[in-house]
């Protein structure tokens, strides 16, 4: 955050959902600025509104109050200008399209010429190392490969911002670590800003330049932890002293926000996702 204008700026964002007999406060008083080129993780217990917040940034959900600016303009404009790519927990690839055709989908919609589409898709599939599988159908690929294809699709139109909603949540631990390495490589090569929702403390620490810790009911930002691990981050990073310190710091930040009565509601992923120190 060295003086460059923020690519995302949230000003006292709040969100209420209507429920039977009233409304529930999902988010309250969210203030956050994300600089261009940052990698920011949102972490918190289930129901803390982190996925909702991601969708508010992407203008998939309207906030009840507050302001959302992306790239210096209102979120609606940013969406219409196709300023961001989206990756979900499931790959959401289309069965009837080959991997290559899936990656080309946003380009088709954006009226890119056929030649540019093919070239761009080839570049993206190279980037995610799926070039050999471009003629395959999604169901012929493993879960990790499908998710890489989804990332290629999200990056195909060179969005300035990548919004990722627990993209590796459905993958096993080994695959997830490999995907984390890949994602960092892609992030470093493309210079895209990434906002990343996760349940996993180690994942958040390993990837991010900042970890935003959220609490539940109402969803609020309680801590923002700067991750000063040197880059490039590789396997030795996962075994470094500083890494464990930061994992502990994030865990304690999460715990401090949690009443004793909420301990039972902890997500299994938060506990089992931790490495044994």
């Amino acid at each position, binding site marked *: 955050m060295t003086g460059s204008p923020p690519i995302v700026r949230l000003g006292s964002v709040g969100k209420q959902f209507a429920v039977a007999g009233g409304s529930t406060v999902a988010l309250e008083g969210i203030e956050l600025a994300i600089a261009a080129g940052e990698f920011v993780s949102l972490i918190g217990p289930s129901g803390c509104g982190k996925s909702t917040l991601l969708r508010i940034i992407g203008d998939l959900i309207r906030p009840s109050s507050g302001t959302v600016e992306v790239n210096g303009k209102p979120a609606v404009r940013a969406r219409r200008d196709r300023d*961001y790519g989206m990756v979900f927990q499931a*790959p959401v690839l*289309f069965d*009837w399209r080959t991997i290559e055709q899936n990656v080309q989908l946003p380009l088709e*919609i*954006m009226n890119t010429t056929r030649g540019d589409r093919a070239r761009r898709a080839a570049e993206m599939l190279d980037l995610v190392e799926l070039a050999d599988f471009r003629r395959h159908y999604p*169901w012929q690929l493993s*879960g990790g490969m499908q998710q890489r294809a989804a990332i290629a699709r999200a990056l195909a139109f060179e969005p300035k911002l990548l919004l990722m909603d627990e993209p590796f949540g459905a993958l096993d631990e080994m695959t997830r670590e490999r995907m984390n390495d890949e994602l960092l490589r892609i992030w470093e090569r493309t210079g895209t800003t990434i906002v990343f929702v996760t349940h996993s403390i180690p994942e958040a620490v390993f990837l991010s330049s900042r970890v935003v810790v959220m609490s539940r009911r109402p969803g609020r930002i309680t801590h923002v932890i700067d991750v000063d691990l040197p880059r490039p981050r590789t396997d030795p990073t996962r075994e470094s002293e500083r890494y464990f310190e930061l994992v502990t710091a994030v865990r304690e930040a999460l715990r401090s926000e949690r009443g004793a009565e909420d301990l039972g509601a902890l997500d299994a992923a938060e506990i089992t996702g931790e490495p044994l120190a």
Partner: protein
Amino acid sequence: MTAASATLGRRAPTVSAHGLGGMLRGAASFVAVIALLVIAWEAAKWIAGDPWREVLGVPFEPPHVPWLDIKQLNDQNLPHVWEIVGAYFRPATRNSDFTLGAVLIDAAIFTGRSAVLGFAAGAIFGLILAIVFVHSALLERALVPYVIASQTVPIVALAPMIVLWVGRDWGSVVLVSAYLTFFPVTIAAVRGLASPDPRALELMRSYATGWWHVLWKVRFPAALPYLFTAFKISATASVVGAIVGEEPTGIRGGLGRAILQFNEQYISGPEKLWATVFACAVLGITLFLIVRVAETLVLRGRSAPSDL
């Protein structure tokens, strides 16, 4: 959630019974089933029908007397298989220059044309209705009761009225056929168009696309497997519709007319009506198979097609 179910919830293909070996096996089992039916048919007549008198015109009078006598199985009610097969090769009527087979092929083409047009009209109408329903919950709530009511009215009651409105020509026939066709398409298309993962719709929203792209790039392709299921039902229904539609219009040259005519002549030649009934079945099976081939081609690379 497994990887397979994550790709918009459709099954990954299993090993399918396609290729040459599969086709041969399919043909062999088809022939075997026909053979079994013929054997069962003739066995029933042997045990409880009339004694044999001739086979394909050749006098043949074995000293066989059936053990039982059941009225339903006599030659009047259940002609011998070879009588029915033979009927295709004999003149359609006493003074006719054409064999019954030739007449029925002509009639099947005539009726088939109406059925195909009715199928196409019904499928398009059914699909448009579904597209409207998927985009407007209000219209869906308002119109669905009438769509359902339309299908509870017996077509034999409605067909004469359609003839009064549209006239005694092929337009009525096509309309009756379309009437029987659109309903399965609407039901399946509503389901199919609504089948994409909500995240797929969010993805499209993130691309800032209009409803047209969502329909054409996501909803419609996702609905295709559902649509083909409906098309297969509708293909056979369209034949029924065309035949039923021909009767009140009094149109000559189709299977509907042939059924009426041979129904009147049943006493003198029961095998002719049976032959006509089988011609109707063959027409229905033909349209069904055309849809199935189209399905295999269109859904290539997706999930494995079944025999239905």
